[in-house]
C-alpha cells in the first residue's frame, strides 16, 4: 500500500471517529444545558450571598432574619406570601426585590416597624451604581436570586435550622447566643466574634458595667430591664426609642432567660 492510501484510510477512520464524538456530544447536550443552568443558578446564589453579607447584614441581620425596628426579615413568609399584594406590585416577587434594591427606599412603607438606621430618609439607600449606589446590575440580580432561594424556608419555617450551628440544647449560654442572633440584637450591638454594629452600645463588658448602675438590685436586674424597657435607663450617647420597646412581647420567657444568662458572661471589655 502506498502512503497516500494509508492516509486516505486513516483519514476516513478519523473523520468517522470525529462524527461519532460529535453525535455523542449532541445527544448529551440537552442534559448538559440543563445541568449548566442549575449550576449557574447555584453560583449566582453564592455570589448573591457574598454581596448580601457585605452590604445588607447591618440592617437585615446576619442571616437575613431581619432586625426589629431596623429592617424586615428577608427569608420569612411575610415577604414571600403577601408582600407584593400588600404594596400593589404588578410583576414577580423577584422583580420587586430587584426594583427595591436598585432604587432603595426613601420613606418606609411600615414606619412603625422599620426605620433603617433611624436617621431619617432614606431608610434604605439606593444600591444601583446607576443611581450612585455601589452595586452593579449583575450583583443586584444575584442578591435577588439569593433572597429568592429562601422560598423553601419561608414556606416551612419549622424546618429552618438554628442560625448558628450550636447544638448543645441544654446549655443556656449557648442558646442565649443563638437567641441574640435570632431576635436581631446583633443587628444593633457589637459582640466580639459574633457581630459588628454601631446602632447600640457594645455588649462586651456589659456584665461588669451592669452591676455598677444605681437603682438596680443586680446586674441581672439591669440587663433584664434594659431589654424589656429600654427607655427606663438610657446609655450615654444613645437616643430614646431606637431600641425596640416590644421585646417583652416578642421574646418568650425561656429565650429571654437564656439571653440574660449569655449577656452575664460578657465580663471583659
Amino acid at each position, binding site marked *: 500500500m502506498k502512503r497516500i492510501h494509508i492516509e486516505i484510510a486513516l483519514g476516513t477512520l478519523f*473523520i468517522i471517529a470525529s462524527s461519532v464524538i460529535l453525535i455523542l456530544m449532541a445527544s448529551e447536550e440537552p442534559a448538559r444545558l440543563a445541568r449548566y443552568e442549575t449550576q449557574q443558578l447555584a453560583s449566582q446564589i453564592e455570589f448573591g*450571598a457574598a454581596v448580601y453579607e457585605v452590604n445588607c447584614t447591618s440592617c437585615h441581620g446576619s442571616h437575613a432574619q431581619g432586625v426589629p425596628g431596623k429592617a424586615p426579615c428577608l427569608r420569612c413568609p411575610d415577604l414571600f406570601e403577601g408582600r407584593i399584594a400588600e404594596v400593589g406590585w404588578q410583576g414577580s416577587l423577584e422583580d420587586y426585590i430587584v426594583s427595591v434594591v436598585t432604587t432603595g427606599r426613601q420613606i418606609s412603607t411600615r414606619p412603625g416597624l422599620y426605620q433603617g438606621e433611624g436617621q431619617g430618609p432614606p431608610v434604605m439607600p439606593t444600591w444601583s451604581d446607576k443611581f450612585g449606589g455601589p452595586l452593579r446590575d449583575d450583583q443586584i440580580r444575584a442578591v435577588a436570586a439569593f433572597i429568592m432561594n429562601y422560598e423553601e424556608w419561608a414556606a416551612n419555617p419549622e424546618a429552618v*435550622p438554628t442560625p448558628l450551628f450550636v447544638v448543645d440544647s441544654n446549655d443556656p449560654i449557648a442558646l442565649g447566643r443563638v437567641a441574640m442572633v435570632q431576635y436581631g440584637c446583633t443587628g444593633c450591638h457589637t459582640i466580639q466574634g459574633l457581630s459588628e454594629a454601631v446602632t447600640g452600645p457594645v455588649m462586651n463588658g456589659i456584665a461588669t458595667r451592669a452591676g455598677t448602675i444605681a437603682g438596680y438590685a443586680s446586674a441581672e436586674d439591669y440587663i433584664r430591664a434594659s431589654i424589656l424597657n429600654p427607655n427606663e435607663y438610657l446609655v450615654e450617647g444613645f437616643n430614646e426609642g431606637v431600641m425596640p420597646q416590644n421585646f417583652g412581647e416578642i421574646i418568650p420567657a425561656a429565650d429571654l432567660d437564656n439571653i440574660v444568662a449569655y449577656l452575664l458572661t460578657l465580663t471583659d471589655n
Partner: protein
Amino acid sequence: MISSLRQRLSQIPRGAELRKRIFEMIDERVRIVTAGLSIKELRAVLRGDPPTEKPNPRYKVITTSFVAHLRPRYYPQGATWFTHTFRLGWFTTFFFVVELITGLVLMIYYIPFPDQAYGSILEIESNVFLGELFRDLHRLGAEAMVLFTWLHLFRTYFTGSYKGQRTFTWLTGVALLAITAWLSFTGYLLTWDQLGYWAITVGTSMTDSGPVVGPALNIIMRGAPDIGTGGLLRFYLNHVVLFPLIAILIISIHYYKVSREHGISMPAVIEEGEVSEDKKKEANRRIDLIPDLLTHEIFLVAVGILALLVIVYFDLFNSPLETPANPQVTPLDTKAPWYFWWLQGLLKIEPAKILENLLNPIVTRFGMAPLQLGLLLDSKFIMGLVVPPVVVGILFAIPYIDRTPARLARKRPFAIAWGILWIFIILALSYMGLPEFGIETPAATRVIQDLAPEEGLGILRETPYEELLPGIYTVGETSPEDLCAKDFAYTDHATGKQVIGCPHLVEVFEQYSSGLLAAEAEGKLPELHAILLIEDYGPDLRRVEMEVSWLDAESDEVKTYVKHYFLHRDRAREH
C-alpha cells in the same frame, strides 16, 4: 412562431449524440469550477493515476485559480519530510482557520458591552446548542495556535530556514508572532470575568510607566483610565475585525513566500550534508499538490479535528469562566494565560536591585555611600517597555545578525546553543511568572487561598455539599476523625455515588491545619488560633468561614484573617 419552435426542437440531438453533448456541457462546467480539471482528469486524480493530458492540467489549477494561486504546484520530496517541518506552520494555519470558524459562531451570540458581555457568555454556555463546544474549541484553538507559532519559530530557527532569500519570510513570521499574541490578548478580555479583566488591566498597565506617551497609550488601549465600555468595544473590534484581517493578509504573504517564491527549504542534510546521489535525487523528486499534498493535508485536517474533539469531549480542556469582572476587587493571584507567564516573570525582575547588590559591596569598600538606583532605573519601565521591544528587535534582526550561509546544525554550534539558551530563558521566566513565585503572601492568606483560590476551584469547592457538616472545627483541637460521625455515609446527589465518611472534608481540614501548623512552626504565626466554621445560610446553602488569628511580632497585637465562602448544593464541583 410555433413552427420556428418546432424547428428548433427538431434540432435537439437524441440518443448517443445527446449524451455526448450533455457530457461535454457538464465537463466544461467542471473545468470552470475546478479551474482546469476535466471529469476524466478528476477521476484520475481520485484514483491516483498519472495526469491524462499534457501539459499537466493539475498545475493549471494553481496558475489560474485565485485561491489556489497561493498553493505550490509541488514540493520537492525532501521538503515534505515530517521531521523537517513537523507540520508546525501548517498546524498553526489550521488552528487559525479553526479560530475563524468557531469565532464566527461565538460572534453571533456575544454582546460586547460590560453589563451584557458576561451574561452573553453564560447564555452561550447554558442556552446555545453545542455552545460550550464552540467556546472550548475557540479557546483551545487559540492556545494551540500560540503554542504552535512558538514551536514553528524554533523549528525554522534550528533548521536555519530563515537564511538567504528567506529573510523576508522570517520577518513576516515575527510580525505574525506579535499578531497572534495580540489576538489572544484582546480575546482574553471579552469574557468580562475577573480572570480576563484583571489580566488585561495588569497587561495594559505596562505602558503606564513609559515616558511622555506611556499614559496616553494606556488610555488609548483602555478607552478610559479604567477598562469600561469604550475599552471593551475597542478590544472586541481589534479581536474580531482588525486583527483577523491583518492576520489573514500577513499569513497570505508569509505563505506565498514559502509556497510560491522559495518553496519550503530543503533539509540541510540534503543541501550540505554528505548524502548519496540517489538520496539527493529522491529528495528532489516532485510531490505534486494534486493529489498527494492535498490528500496529506486533508488527512492532517482529520487528525487535527479528531484531536480537538477528543480533548474537549474527555474534558481534558475546559474554558475557564470566573465571577463577573469587578473593578473594585483585585483577585489575589492575578494570573495571565500561560503563554504570557514569561512576560509576567520578566516584570518581577528588578534591575536596580540586582545592580545595587552587585555594585554596592565594591562601592562601599571604597568608602562611598551605597548606590540607590531605584529612582534611576524604574523596573516596570525597563522590564515592561524596554526589554520586550528589544527582544522583538533581536528576533527581527536574527537573519541579519547570523549571516553565515551554513544551515547544518553541526556547522553552526553557536547559533544552536543560543537557540537552546533562549528556550531555557523562556521556561525560566515563565516559571518566575507563576503567581506563587517571588510574591510573599502572608502565611494565613496563602493557606486559605490554596484551599479555595479566587480563580478556579480548589478542594474546598470540590467538596460535596453533603460533607459540609455544620459545626466549628478548631485547628489543633478537633481531630480529623471527629469531623463526622463514625457511621456517617451519604449518596452524592450529583454523581449518585455512595460515600462512606467525609473524606473531602477531612482533606480540607487536614490541609488547612497542616498548612497553618507548619507556618506556626516556622514562627510565622505565633500563638495560632484557627477555626473552620460551617453553618447553614439558606436552603441548600452553607457558609464556610475560616478564621485565623495570631500574635503579630512587630506590633505585639493579635491579628485576625477571616475569609468566607458560600457553597450551594448544586454548584459545579469540577471543571
